[in-house]
């Protein structure tokens, strides 16, 4: 069984799921991919939107989608360094 993900890893998994779908994803797909409960995913999405790592947009016919921002790409690019840093100090 894998170890419990920390907050940094969950953020990475959410943003990576959006990236893997070409930078744009439907909420239902994100819920499935992020492996979180609906409530928890909503909390994370609100936080990530607040930090401008992703945005919510309305596509055709009132369909909501999540879009990865430039800062989101930056986070993914730096994730390995940040993860190694937290591992280094057991954080």
């Amino acid at each position, binding site marked *: 069984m894998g170890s419990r993900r920390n907050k940094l890893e969950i953020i990475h998994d959410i943003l990576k799921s959006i990236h893997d779908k070409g930078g744009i994803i439907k909420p239902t797909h994100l819920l499935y991919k992020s492996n979180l409960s609906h409530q928890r995913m909503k909390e994370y999405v609100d936080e990530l939107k607040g930090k401008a790592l992703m945005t919510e947009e309305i596509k055709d016919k009132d369909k909501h989608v999540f879009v990865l921002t430039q800062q989101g790409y930056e986070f993914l690019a730096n994730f*390995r360094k940040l993860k*190694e840093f*937290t*591992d280094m*100090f057991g954080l």
Partner: protein
Amino acid sequence: MSLVSEVPQAFFALGASFEVLAGIAAFLVGFFGLKVYNYASDRKYYWFSLAFFFIAISFFAGSFVHLLLYLGLRESLFDFFKMVDFAISTVYVVLLLAAYTLILSVSSNLHNKKLVLFILALSSLMVFTSRGVEQLLRNFFLVQFVMIIFITLNYFENFAKKTNMTTFLSFFAFSSMGLGHALLYVRTLLSYLSPILYMGGYFFLLFGYIILLFSVARLALKRKTFKK
């Protein structure tokens, strides 16, 4: 810090330079911690980076005092420099006690704020109720040594779990700091021993931070592997 009079003058210049390097190392660790905090908003990253910023400030302050000693200003010039030395030494002790309490709490996953404050209060009382400067320094080095022992144990467990180079480096760095504090404590306890012990203590303490500087620089210089 600046109270061992029989240490050769040249050591203070060397000490000041090493302390600047150690301060930079601590600042970089704090900076990385803050970066993680900005993304994850988890308070433990905030406390961790704050601890290293405290250490960075205390080392820069310590470097300034060592520079005063090297230039002979403290002894030969005005009372003003003695006051500056006293104020900086107090700030140095307070910041380092707070910093190591925070690192110990974060690395031990202590979430109880009262318990963290209790550790800080107990260690501060032990240091600041000392009789005279010599005893204050002795108690300070002892408290720091005990804290670093427990921090090092946490980092050993972290290394044993992950067995990679970065976790080994953090364990090695804190081991070196622990040895440094042990030597500083022994030297202040047995004042008839050679001042080389004092210099050795400082060397191991600062060497620990140089290892941290190396490992954080190694991390910062790694290439980004993610492609858009």
